[in-house]
């Protein structure tokens, strides 16, 4: 028997009011602006102007995809090796992973740009050593590099957390049952850390696809991604409507990809979700 007072029943009401006013309404406004012209008349014109931004979307998806995959390829072994260190070292490494996450993204991106710019420290070093200059800022490579640099910690941390939660007994058991280390890796460690990988992927992919600061600084205003386009369109009241459509499309894109990703993690093998008991069917 759990008696609850009116107070407890109504406790969620302020929150409900808040979410309706400041989450649901704004979304409705995005929809409204997406399907009207700048005089408030219903129109599909904005949708048709989307075609112009086709390449921008393709490029953003491609960059985010590449950045995510590279982060995974670098981050997974890193997290695995980190989990093999002594507990004390693990704690320090954990702080080192979290520090960049907590530092403002703008600062890190700007620091990277200042370092890599044609007249920056890297190039003056290369020059004094007699090498050719590397043009990184203002190129596709520069933007992707920026994404990897900025978001790598977001990939490492969840995987590392999943690794530390992994019971070493499973690994021992798999060795006892005759697995070599490769088999242990693919059949035990990887499936058991899949949930960490999935959340790492979402945490890298979503900010990468929507960034505008990274492309502004490392792309020098020349490589426009979806984020830059939205940001620019929302600087001018006459282009709010097109901006709203692009935001809407991006939102749908992300919801689809996140849903697909979560389906992968839906199997009940993951130790971070369940109690770790039924790890093999």
């Amino acid at each position, binding site marked *: 028997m759990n008696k609850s007072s009116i107070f407890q029943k109504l406790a*969620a009401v302020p929150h409900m009011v808040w979410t309706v006013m400041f989450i649901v309404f704004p979304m409705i406004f995005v929809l409204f602006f997406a399907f009207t012209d700048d005089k408030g008349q219903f129109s599909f014109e904005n949708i048709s102007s989307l075609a112009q931004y086709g390449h921008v979307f393709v490029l953003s998806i491609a960059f985010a995809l590449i950045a995510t995959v590279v982060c995974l390829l670098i981050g997974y072994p890193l997290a695995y090796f980190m989990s093999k260190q002594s507990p004390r070292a693990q704690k320090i490494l954990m702080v080192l992973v979290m520090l960049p996450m907590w530092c*403002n993204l703008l600062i890190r991106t700007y620091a990277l740009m200042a370092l890599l710019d044609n007249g920056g420290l890297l190039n003056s070093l290369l020059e004094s050593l007699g090498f050719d200059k590397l043009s990184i800022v203002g190129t596709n490579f520069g933007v992707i590099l920026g994404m990897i640099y900025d978001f790598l910690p977001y990939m490492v941390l969840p995987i590392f957390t999943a690794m530390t939660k992994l019971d070493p007994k499973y690994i021992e058991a798999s060795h006892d049952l005759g697995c070599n280390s490769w088999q242990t890796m693919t059949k035990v460690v990887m499936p058991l850390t899949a949930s960490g990988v999935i*959340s790492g992927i979402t945490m890298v992919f979503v900010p990468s696809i929507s960034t505008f600061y990274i492309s502004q600084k490392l792309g020098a205003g020349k490589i426009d991604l979806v984020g830059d386009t939205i940001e620019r369109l929302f600087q001018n009241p006459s282009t709010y409507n097109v901006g709203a459509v692009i935001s809407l499309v991006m939102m749908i894109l992300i919801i689809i990809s996140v849903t697909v990703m979560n389906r992968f993690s839906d199997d009940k093998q993951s130790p971070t979700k369940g109690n770790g008991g039924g790890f093999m069917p």
Partner: protein
Amino acid sequence: MKFLQRSYIFLIFLLLYVPILVLIVFSFNEAGSLAEFSGFSTVWYEELFNDDEALTSLCNSLLLAVSSSVIATIIGTFASLGLHRMRSKWLKGAINTVTNIPMMNPDIVTGVSMMLLFVALAGFLGSQNLFGFGTMLIAHVTFNLPYVILSVLPRFKQLDTSMSEAAQDLGCTPSQAFFKVELPEIVPGIVSGLMLSFTMSLDDFVISHFVSSPDFQTLPLYVYNQTAHNVKFSMYALSALIVVVILVILLIVNFAGSFNRKTIAKGGAK
């Protein structure tokens, strides 16, 4: 093998930290140049502490972070209580889904949607000065709410309901039972929710970028404006200070217990 693993870890962390270290070292560069180091000097730090704009934005940032995280924590804690007691599965699911929208959505979409709301509201009210502290506060509370609920709600689920029942059997009213028995149990969740939203709010640039006005500039907005113009070298000093402060806080917190932000936020803790 151990050696290879360690060198890999070392290499990646080196790459991750080079830009930050360069930034910190060159913030002491007398010449105010990134290309060569001419001599040690704290002149940029002095300039920073004489820069009213930077100090005001620091104050604004703290003010906004404290007020938005406190408001979000209060609303979010009560919401968790309500959600926990809610019978209707459908309503619960609906509220959860809507609450998590700002967490799922890229920041830029949340930002522009808020901006459209305020623009429409300003048009409706015929007001000129709608943007400012108020709009920033609303936006920050909104994106903090899911994080608070995410850290408080699991605490409610872990509660032993028999305790509350025992208290009520002993003569407490339900609300007394809540404040005296249940609340102390969920305090750690509330604290981590508060800290989580405090840091989220302190760190946020993208959403603030769309709902701010020159009236109320936060630190990330100040950094953004700086980097869009002729960058003063005191910006490097500021960045170096931020990195060091965060490192200190992280070390304190981490060696006093484990508290991490993004895994609670988006990871597995369901």
